[in-house]
């Protein structure tokens, strides 16, 4: 079938969404920052948002690598 690698790409994206969600809920969400008084909630949300953004960057990096791999493999074929 034409474009089989793209189906694999879609599947990998799906797995990354589920794994990313798992990381977010199991590890990042329970984190709490204390000891900064009234700034606790802002710091807490900010750090979590920062970690989530780093995860998104990592996610995009992985997808870029997979895209290049698929593209080069198809060109070779």
């Amino acid at each position, binding site marked *: *079938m*034409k*474009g089989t690698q*793209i*189906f694999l*790409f*879609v*599947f990998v*994206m*799906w797995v990354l*969404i*589920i794994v990313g*969600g*798992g990381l*977010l*809920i*199991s590890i990042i*969400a329970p984190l709490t920052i204390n000891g900064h008084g009234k700034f606790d909630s802002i710091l807490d*949300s900010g750090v979590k*948002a920062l970690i*989530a953004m780093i995860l998104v960057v990592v996610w*995009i990096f992985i*997808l*870029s690598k997979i*895209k290049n791999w*698929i*593209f080069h493999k*198809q*060109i070779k*074929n």
Partner: protein
Amino acid sequence: MLDKIILAILVSAIAFFSVYITTPFLIKGLEKRNLTVKDYNRVGGAMVPRPGGPSILVGILASEFTLYAFFPTAEILAILITTSLAFVVGLIDDRKVLGGWFKPVALAISAIPIILLGTYDPHLSFPLFGSVRIPELYIALVIFMIPVTGNTINSIDVLNGVASGFMTIASFALTISLFIVHNYDIALASLPLGFVSLAFYKYHKFPSRIFPGDSGALTLGAMYGVLAIVGHVEIIAAVALLPAVINSFLFLSSVKRIIEHRQIKSNPVTHTDDFRLMATTDKDAPVTLVRLILVGGPMTEKQVGLVIFRLAIFSAVLAIVTAFMMGVKI
């Protein structure tokens, strides 16, 4: 329950037949006013009427207002207002050449009624792991989601029938998923999107008699985004949209900035002598889903469309599996 089934049949029929009946009149009207664009992938470059957005909006408004008459909920109101605003944004873009940033910003503003009407739940649910409460971040997500879904569907509107066919598959997957997660009211409200897309596909499929234009694509995409938010199925909706997301991702990662398609200097796709589509060898051309599909060799427009539909069905199945996984916790 029986009354909801009857209502589901009624709104589906209204959505489908409103578009099915009004689109031929719209085609004639657009031809009469010379509002046509060249179909570059067709031998001889036929002129095709554009935009089909008005008939799509008629179908959505007629069916959602009917639903609102029976169930006057804020969620349906949010669907109606945001979708209509997205249509206006698209119509402006259809008529005037605007910068690449106009659509994302205007669509973000279109999302404000969802927040003002309080039709969102600041919990983001993931399969297997449960949900996370993100009150402040969720508002940003609402603002972000409508431009993303709108532009994602708009960016896949590159071949005859692809945007409407893709939307038909994705929105029916979303409806099934909403039923699986027991959100019956929003499932009912999502039915018109699938039936409107299906009716429009009849005229949009290869060889197209009408193009949806920005007004059509943004209307469909924005409504899909609102349904995902008010139905609390954001992740499921994203999964069903994966092939279109990949298209946007490929485009943005190769172009590295937000630009309009018309601003692209090198076309990612060229033609063979027998007018089949072929991936360009131009290194400056952006990478798109169609170009990636064509790397395997030249194909007809119809064949490329079928590969995209197979990808859409694959993603739809993954979305439904994700919906089932929502009920499982590890």
